[in-house]
């Protein structure tokens, strides 16, 4: 901990207390100085992400509530999201599985981009960030396909052909809000990648790549919960 003063010095000017764990936790909060020894942008991103956690949680808890409280049968996600290729039998949930793999791949490229950023390898950082953005855009494209497919089936926010009417409302609301986050993330990634490329952060350091990465991993994290609760259970 104590050796992290170089990072803290650039971040805030106040070195972190020379203690770790619980003692460090108490010292951070009681020192009457700065509590978080990270760059301010990173602290603010985390606070934004915690608030975003509550928004997504409200959607997911709302989904749980309508699903528990309806006496109508809930449509079978495994059949609704099945897909057939070249006239094969429909493979259950395959589109969602592919989307999950695309998003996890993008999280991996983002993690590598952060790592190369801290190594000051500008070229690799930019390439990996662009790859992340491309994978994110792919994800959104597949989601658009999924939406158009469900609209074609006659799924509406107020009704669907198979069971509980709330299915459509929950589906469009949750995946729509998540897709909006991915879309925003793609734009954010491209903006930051361009600035990295132009040397904007050569002097002030590459923390911004990590901060962008936090947002991107969060989007992946939310998908983990949506995948489990909405598609699998």
């Amino acid at each position, binding site marked *: 901990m104590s050796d992290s003063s170089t990072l803290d010095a650039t971040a805030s000017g106040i070195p972190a207390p020379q203690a770790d764990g619980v003692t*460090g*936790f108490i010292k951070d909060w009681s020192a009457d100085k700065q509590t978080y020894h990270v760059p301010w942008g990173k602290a603010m991103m985390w606070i934004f992400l915690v608030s975003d956690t509550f928004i997504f949680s409200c959607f997911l808890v709302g989904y*749980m509530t309508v699903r*528990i*409280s309806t*006496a*109508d049968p809930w449509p079978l996600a495994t059949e609704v999201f099945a897909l057939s290729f070249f006239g094969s039998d429909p493979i259950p*949930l395959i589109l969602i599985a592919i989307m999950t793999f695309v998003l996890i791949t993008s999280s991996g490229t983002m993690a590598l981009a952060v790592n190369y950023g801290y190594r000051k390898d500008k070229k690799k950082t930019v390439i990996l960030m662009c790859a992340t953005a491309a994978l994110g855009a792919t994800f959104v494209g597949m989601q658009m396909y999924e939406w158009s497919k469900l609209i074609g089936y006659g799924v509406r926010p107020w009704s669907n052909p*198979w069971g509980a009417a709330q299915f459509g409302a929950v589906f469009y609301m949750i995946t729509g809000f998540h897709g909006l986050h991915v879309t925003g993330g793609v734009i954010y990634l491209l903006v930051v990648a361009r600035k990295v490329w132009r040397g904007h952060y050569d002097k002030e350091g590459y923390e911004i790549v990590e901060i962008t990465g936090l947002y991107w991993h969060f989007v992946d994290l939310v998908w983990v*919960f949506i995948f489990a609760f909405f598609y699998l259970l």
Partner: protein
Amino acid sequence: MASSASGPQQHPLGIYLKIWTLLFVLSMFSYMVDYFDVQGVMRWTLVLLFMALKAGFILAIFMHVVWERMALALTILGPPMILLVLIFFMAVEGNYTEGARVQYLGHEANRSPLHVEH
């Protein structure tokens, strides 16, 4: 809480590649649960287990929480815990609503959804 003596910038690439592979494998397992049509308690257990592991690894390693000081880590992980109370309340409330719909409005609770025509 691991020490962040070297700061987040000096982790070897290997750990990211390992976690990345692990996330792939766990996602594959989640999908297999659906593909092989595991149902009932086993489905819930497996899906929630794989979900928790994936979420944990993303938070801890990809989002570097394991290397952060406890003050920041608890700011991130502490407040969302209150959601467990919300989940509990809404589950109780939802059960009550369903019971009322069945008992007073005559809704039939044990129907199966219609199958999807592709």
